[in-house]
């Protein structure tokens, strides 16, 4: 396997809880079905995921912001911050055949690779393990969402900051303060007050 991104995609599948040795052939077939990487500059919108794209995407390098239009705020809101080695999709298009409510923006320069939905369907028919991997990947996203919800319910901003530092150190070290405030669901002012109070800086 020559391509660096293929190794990352394979690692992703091998790290899923549902993965077993006998799924190796299915994993290799999925990896081979991914297209060549697409590179985007920091600040670019990932137009590849514009409607009605139902493909699966893998973030090989860099970080992405997943944003949505928040009816209760004037600016678009950060829904999620995606680290390298993650799969991301248009959920609304893929699950419900609807126009996506979210869009993705490059937080740093990024490299992404896509798996076309038609290729996924072909693989699903050929390898029954593909659906188990799909379910496991989806369940992992849920587990992360569930865990983050606990943080978002914490009443103290400091507790939320501590949660990100301890539970998502990989994100904490790259998030600027504005994005950190959005990730933990507080205003910038509250975040700055929390840092002032403890006398600690972010890093």
């Amino acid at each position, binding site marked *: 396997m020559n391509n660096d991104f293929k190794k990352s995609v394979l690692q992703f599948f091998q790290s899923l809880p549902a993965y077993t040795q006998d799924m190796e052939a299915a994993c290799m077939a999925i990896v081979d079905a991914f297209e060549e990487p697409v590179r985007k500059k920091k600040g670019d919108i990932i137009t590849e995921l514009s409607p009605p794209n139902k493909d699966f995407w893998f973030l090989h390098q860099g970080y992405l912001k997943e944003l949505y239009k928040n009816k*209760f705020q004037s600016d678009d809101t950060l829904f999620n911050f995606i680290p390298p080695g993650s799969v991301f999709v248009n959920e609304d298009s893929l699950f419900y055949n609807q126009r996506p409510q979210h869009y993705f923006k490059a937080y740093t320069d990024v490299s992404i690779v896509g798996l076309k939905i038609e290729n996924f369907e072909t693989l699903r028919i050929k390898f029954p393990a593909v659906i188990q991997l799909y379910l496991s990947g*989806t369940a992992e996203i*849920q587990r992360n969402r569930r865990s983050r919800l606990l943080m*978002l319910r914490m009443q103290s901003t400091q507790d939320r900051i501590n949660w990100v530092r301890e539970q998502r150190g990989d994100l904490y070290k790259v998030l600027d303060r504005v994005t950190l405030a959005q990730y933990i669901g507080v205003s910038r002012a509250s975040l700055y007050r929390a840092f002032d109070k403890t006398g600690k800086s972010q890093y």
Partner: protein
Amino acid sequence: MSLDKDYATIFQALQEYVRPEEELDYENLGKLARSFVIKTVNQDENLWELSSSNAQLHFILSGAFGEYLVQGKNPQLIRFYRKEKFAFSEDMILYSARPATYAKCLVEARVASIPANVLMSYVQRSQEGVKLLTGLIELSMTEYRNTTYEMLQTSGTDRINAALEQFPDLLNIIPRKELADYLGISRASLFRSLKQIDIE
């Protein structure tokens, strides 16, 4: 409500995920709907517990439940299950692991349930079964997304408004104490916010 009507409701809910095309698929789905066992659950009783080992898929015919995640000292109310929704412990169904959550009845309920092995046998027998399981997991993922929208609001009032958008009957069904816990605000803040949006 007659049992036949209950089973028709369950069948219809299953059908939304499975969308059978062949007559045999309809028959199999009908059999699956009929294998649900209906019971009444009283307020404060658990639908599943942290110590539960018998995984089940539940369908809420009436009433409401809160799902609590236990990490650290205090259980946190992470979402509600209401009428005509499926409910299940993802830990048990997907990972065959002990649940990290429990589901407590908030309003007396009637619930239809099947053991996980009946569900899994249906999943293994047919493509329709795979569609059902996939659909249930995707729905669960969407519900977590909706809850995240609510929690990302920085004021109590906006959190209530965002929650009402997802669940318009929320204030009529969920007791105020649980609602405050769910929104991550104090009861005093909840009442202040409700007054502000002219609900109380």
